[in-house]
């Protein structure tokens, strides 16, 4: 069922900033080069761009198809109109995060990076492996600075 999400419409300018969204003439060059579309026909970058330009809010959901984007930038490279579907998709993801509609792993990654400074925590096991390989100790003082800047 087609529905217009008024909250999403308010954020549309953010999405439009990402790519020349209105220049898309649905040539489907992005679709033919997309590795996700090749394996799953539900993922269609041209349809995503169209849906975003119409202000349809159904893509703003934690289970939306937008999260299957491989961010491989093939669409960016092949788009003749400079629409850059991958950037439209990233902007849609930003809108979803802001409105509390992103998958748990997106929130978890942020917590990791903001609390530890790194994407992956420094474990005792890795400290041991690094010592065995004769590698220098990892700098673990970064978390404070990251917290300061992200507040």
């Amino acid at each position: 069922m087609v529905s217009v999400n008024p909250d999403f419409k308010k954020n549309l300018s953010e999405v439009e900033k990402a790519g020349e969204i209105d220049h898309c003439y649905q040539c489907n060059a992005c679709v033919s080069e997309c590795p996700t579309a090749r394996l799953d026909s539900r993922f269609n970058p041209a349809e995503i761009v169209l849906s975003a330009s119409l202000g349809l809010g159904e893509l703003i959901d934690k289970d939306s198809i937008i999260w299957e984007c491989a961010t491989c930038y093939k669409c960016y490279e092949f788009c003749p109109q400079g629409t850059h579907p991958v950037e439209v998709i990233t902007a849609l993801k930003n809108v979803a995060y802001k409105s509390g509609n992103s998958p748990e792993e997106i929130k978890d990654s942020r917590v990791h990076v903001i609390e530890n400074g790194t994407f992956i925590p420094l474990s005792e096991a890795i400290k041991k492996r690094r010592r065995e390989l004769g590698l220098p100790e990892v700098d673990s003082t970064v978390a404070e600075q990251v917290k300061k800047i992200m507040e």
Partner: protein
Amino acid sequence: MKGTDFTFFPGCMIPLRHPQIELAARIALPQCGINLIDVRGFSCCPEPWNIKASSLEDWLTLASRNIALAERGNRDLLTLCNGCYSTLKEASQILKENGEKQTISEKLSPLGLSLNGKAKVKHVAECLAEVGAERISSLVRKPLKGLKVAIHHGCHLLRPSRLVSFDDPFNPEVLEHLVEALSCEVVKYDGYTDCCGNAVRSPELSLSMASNKCKAMKDSGADVIVVVCPACFEQFDFGQLEIKRKLKKDYQIPVLHYCQLLAISLGNDPSALGLQAHRVGVDGLMKKIG
């Protein structure tokens, strides 16, 4: 060798999950005249999938902090990872082209950091290409003759070409020359510049992408997959275990970061490189190399 100094940006995945790649880089690069200078305080680049997906503004802020830290030294920055390369290079372009520099500078100022736009962001492959394939070839102590290499560039090394401008995104040749410099044979295969699938959310889709690439590489007769990114490394190395378990396909193609292949070819002892940490065993490969 006197060489050129670079600020070393280690990222997260290599030092915290695959430190054997860092070890190979720390051994091989100075032998090619690339000196890695450690700088304290770097955070996650931040990675261009989840953090960028949550907030472009936060992604740019964190990346800018890292760039500002790198700019304290009078050196370019070197990374071993396509994700770090993509984030830091794109962010430094945004700081040059868009009007966001002022806002970001205000956030960095209380930390005693500023942006001067002087440090260039470079991928290790770019730094090695600047050394030159011929020069590298002259340093080789163990030519890897007859070794068939399937190169996997990784998306963010090549695309978006307007921003990364590393190589021709359709017919890349920089890594090819670097692999050939070690006397290896580069094999071409279907889907040569395709994605490894690491950033795809659904495990089934992600594994299928990796499996399709592995099949094409296997069909081309590849002895080894050579990558220049820890995310691609993980997708193919650990990924082949998952592919065997879930898709019942067993490819058994060892995976090496280019720095590891380089270290071996420069005559360093492979048994001292921590390669036993790789999930697809490298014993057969080492036997072939001799």
